[in-house]
């Protein structure tokens, strides 16, 4: 298992000028980068980040689009993987932070979480490249090659859960911009 913060630090070294949708890694990624090409949306509605990443990748084919999704979101909207594979955006890199639990609601287990092969699901849906990682060393070793090859690539990473037991209304807000500003900042940066 990896710590999400460590995984993101490794990725940051290879980020280049990619658009990064930080998803479930948002609270750590914001300490590494918070530019107009960073898209910390929080959680508009579960299950949708993969679709948002696809839409952005299709709209901006000349830019790499990197998403840090979660296994809970993937399970809620597995059909998105078929749509993504059909559209086959070569600029889309779909990372999944798999902590095996619903951390936001107190750490309850995701059904059958220890037995699901997410890379296998993605591959079966048509992703040309998919892999599972459970340790930082292998992930760091392979990451440059993953990002050099065209996507869509699906990279599932086992990470330690960071369970939140504080009531939602009492949690420390880590985002510095609201979602509307995040989207409008991105559109401005893309010349829209």
């Amino acid at each position, binding site marked *: 298992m990896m710590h999400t913060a460590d995984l993101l630090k490794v990725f940051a070294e290879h980020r280049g000028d990619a658009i990064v949708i930080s998803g479930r890694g948002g609270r750590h990624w914001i300490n590494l980068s918070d530019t107009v090409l960073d898209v910390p949306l929080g959680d508009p509605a*579960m299950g949708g980040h993969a679709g948002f990443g696809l839409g952005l990748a299709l709209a901006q084919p000349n830019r790499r689009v990197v998403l840090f999704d979660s296994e809970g979101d993937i399970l809620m909207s597995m059909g998105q993987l078929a749509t993504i594979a059909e559209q086959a955006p070569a600029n889309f890199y779909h990372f999944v932070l798999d902590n095996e639990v619903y951390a936001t609601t107190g750490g309850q287990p995701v059904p059958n979480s220890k037995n699901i092969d997410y890379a296998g699901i993605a591959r079966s849906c048509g992703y040309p490249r998919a892999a599972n990682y459970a340790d930082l060393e292998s992930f760091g070793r392979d990451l440059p090659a993953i990002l050099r090859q065209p996507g869509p690539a699906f990279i599932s990473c086992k990470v330690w859960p960071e369970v939140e037991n504080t009531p939602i209304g009492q949690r420390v807000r880590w985002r510095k911009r609201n979602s509307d500003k995040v989207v409008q900042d991105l*559109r401005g940066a893309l010349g829209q």
Partner: protein
Amino acid sequence: MADQSAALSPETVMRQMKSNRVTDIVWLPDSETNWLFLLMQSDPDLRLVGVTREGHACSITAGLYAGGRKPMILIQNTGMMESGDSIRGWLMGLNVPVVLMVGYRGYTRHGVNSDTAATYTERFLMAFNISFYLVENDGDADRITTAFQEAEKTRKPVVVLVGDEYHGFNR
């Protein structure tokens, strides 16, 4: 004088899409879209993104909009209702100015409605405070442009209800 034909033709819908500069159709087939699909598929300037569940269209549309495209969603009323939280979070929450063209399965102007999909469609839209326009034939086509204009002005999703099932879009 406005066209009062009894049907809504797929050509009319295509003209409205083109005149409103739609770039992408994010869709899941329904009872309305039969022949319209063939027209859309043959247009090299339109990208079709097929989804497996209607709620997925909301987040994909949000991403396309964030990246500078002008998508339109094409789904059935049943799927729209299934998508409630996605509409809330990805379209309304992110202020995405999108038109959803929604097949109004079960709608009838005459007699008594027997399909609960139709019974709850407008109630759903009113509960979400989503503006909507009913289009039943070619004479109503301008309402589609009105929907696009309202979406742009308000930066909110606007629905066009297609009340011409198994008729206008089919031949």
